[in-house]
């Protein structure tokens, strides 16, 4: 069988062209991103906490004795009084229950990342689908989804989570799902819908429809990929709100989690060290600063991605 593959063989194959284009736009966007500076700062802080999270299991398996350094059930037998000030063995001291603060900090960093990532993925999946469907179908579906979004936007998230924690057991997984639903059907969905509105009127959607593309096919293959840059941007903001909500709820003692930065401050508070900021700084600052730094670095990253994605904010 003779198949004429001549021109294809001479020309670079399709995926290579696509890869090249993607590479070029990535390069362009990266240089735009570099110019925002604040984004780099955010990225550096995030990398730092990622390293901390990754280093914890390694340290636990090599240098740190499990009985002393376990973040939840460890006890610093080598200190005479708890909470012990920072020393060589415990660089950030120990908490009122004799547990190593640095170990707790590093252990919690991992769950914060997982929580943020999960909440962001749930948000973006729901938000993208809501935005794409609402924009594609319009009419009744659009109205229903947008009215639902109105309610979601209006609801104060922390207050809802506080009430919910009275009704059901809320752990990290439930929290991530709740935040994902709240913001996916709420603000993120609305923003992605407004973007999707400009996508569904493009000629290639019409072309796909006339060539017999199904509804689901058009939404998934033609609409959703065009929403991805913006959804990626909103992932960053969701991570910020997820970490923040987790910290506040576990600070109030309403979450069912083993260890987290918010819980570390809760321990400090319930042991009565909260206003002795000067004498027992290591009980308050490491966890609080970590929450603040990680939240703001994801926010900074989101903002500088916004300047990359949104051409109107670029410098002339």
């Amino acid at each position, binding site marked *: 069988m003779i198949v004429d593959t001549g021109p294809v063989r001479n020309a670079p194959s399709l995926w290579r062209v696509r890869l090249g284009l993607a590479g070029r736009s990535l390069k362009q966007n990266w240089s735009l991103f570099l110019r925002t500076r*604040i984004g780099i700062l955010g990225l550096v802080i995030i990398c730092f906490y990622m390293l901390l999270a990754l280093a914890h299991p390694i340290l636990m398996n090599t240098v740190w004795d499990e009985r002393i350094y376990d973040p939840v059930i460890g006890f610093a037998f080598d200190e005479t009084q708890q909470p012990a000030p920072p020393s060589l063995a415990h660089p950030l001291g120990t908490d009122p229950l004799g547990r190593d603060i640095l170990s707790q900090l590093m252990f919690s960093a991992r769950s914060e990342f997982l929580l943020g990532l999960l909440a962001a993925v749930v948000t973006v999946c729901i938000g993208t689908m809501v935005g794409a469907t609402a924009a594609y179908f319009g009419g009744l579906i659009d109205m229903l989804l947008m009215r639902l979004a109105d309610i979601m936007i*209006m*609801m104060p998230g922390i207050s809802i989570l506080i009430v919910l924690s009275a009704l059901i057991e809320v752990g990290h997984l439930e929290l991530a799902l709740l935040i994902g639903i709240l913001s996916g059907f709420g603000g993120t969905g609305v923003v992605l819908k407004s973007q999707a509105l400009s996508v569904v009127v493009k000629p290639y959607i019409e072309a796909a429809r006339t060539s017999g593309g199904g509804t689901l096919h058009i939404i998934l293959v033609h609409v959703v990929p065009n929403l991805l840059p913006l959804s990626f941007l909103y992932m960053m903001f969701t991570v910020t709100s997820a970490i*923040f909500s987790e910290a506040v709820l576990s600070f109030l*003692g309403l979450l069912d989690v083993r260890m987290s930065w918010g819980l570390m401050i809760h321990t400090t508070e319930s042991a009565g060290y909260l206003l002795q900021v000067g004498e027992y700084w290591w009980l308050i600052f490491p966890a609080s600063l970590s929450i603040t730094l990680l939240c703001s670095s994801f926010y*900074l990253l989101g903002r500088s991605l916004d300047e990359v994605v949104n051409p109107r904010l670029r410098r002339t």
Partner: protein
Amino acid sequence: MAAYIVKRVLQIVLTLFVFLTIVFFLVNAQPGDISRLYSLDPNLPPETRAQMQELFGVNEPLWKQYLVHLKNTLTGDLGVSFSLYPRTVADVIKERLPRTLVLFLTATVVSFYLGFGLGKIIAWRRGGWVEYTSTLGGVTLYTVFTPWFGLMMIWLFAFKAGWFPIGKFLDPVVWQDAPSDANTVFNLMLATAVVLSVITFTVFLVTSKKRLGMARALQAGIIAVSVLIVAGVWLSSGVGYLAWDIVKHMVLPIATLTLISFAGTMLLTRNSMLEVIREDYVLAARAKGLPEKAVRDRHVARNALLPVVTSFVFSLAFAIDGGVIIESIFSWPGMGQTLVAATVSEDLPLAVGTFVFVGLFVLLAHLAADILYAYLDPRVRY
């Protein structure tokens, strides 16, 4: 305009209905009913439990319970609080709602002006160190771990410096033989604040068409005079020292809430300004030879205001959440602190009642912001 308001009010009523439904089914989604709260008590015979179930109406079919719940909520009957036992939920809320309103409204208005003013300035000087420091500072304040920030404020200004009291609503020593109770004084203060803000708003509205310098002078003058008159009335009323005590307790929470929420407005104003600056009419205004300040405030900022007001609606929920946290940190006995305390002590009627009111409050604030937006933007007529 009137048709628009009516339409919005109808929508809000519908949303309230949906909201109440969600709350009801959330509460009922958990296993068991309210008599289970006493199920740990071994002395409770089955007959008593059945009687209790009948009393609370939990053995009725769900739809009937739902209708009763709707009727009770709409008539203001929210049940009896468990933790503050003989008091009804409505009574507790009636006492605490004004306290939250003052905290929230003051902080929102101040942070809006502060954020808008600063945003204007940093957008105008793009690229300098001013922009970087204010963006960084703004983002840090916006995403700061609020309980810690509140704590630092208490520690610095109340604990170390001793300028303000540490948390709470009033100082019992001052109030020992006060001629009137705290709620009366506080409601009077609330009324004063409302009068003052109406005056301020009217002044801004009337002077907005005047020339820039004159408008500024008029605004400052009239506001200063009215503040002086109000201060004089309070000083001569005999309960002025009591009001002053409450004011002293209010300063720190309001300052904290303002600091955490102004940055959102500031960053958004900056972005919105950057988009408007490129318009042709800004170039035209400059070409006319108008002073920079007039171009900035009258031509760019006026038009940059619209998206900021829109997002202001979105940020209401943020401010309320901030308020909930700030209130529990400062032991300010408002709705937020009540919500947290009721949840921690598993006082379900109070928690749900407070939550319903917080939701209602957000809905009303939303409506107000929508109407304001329709007024500001003549293009909005839907």
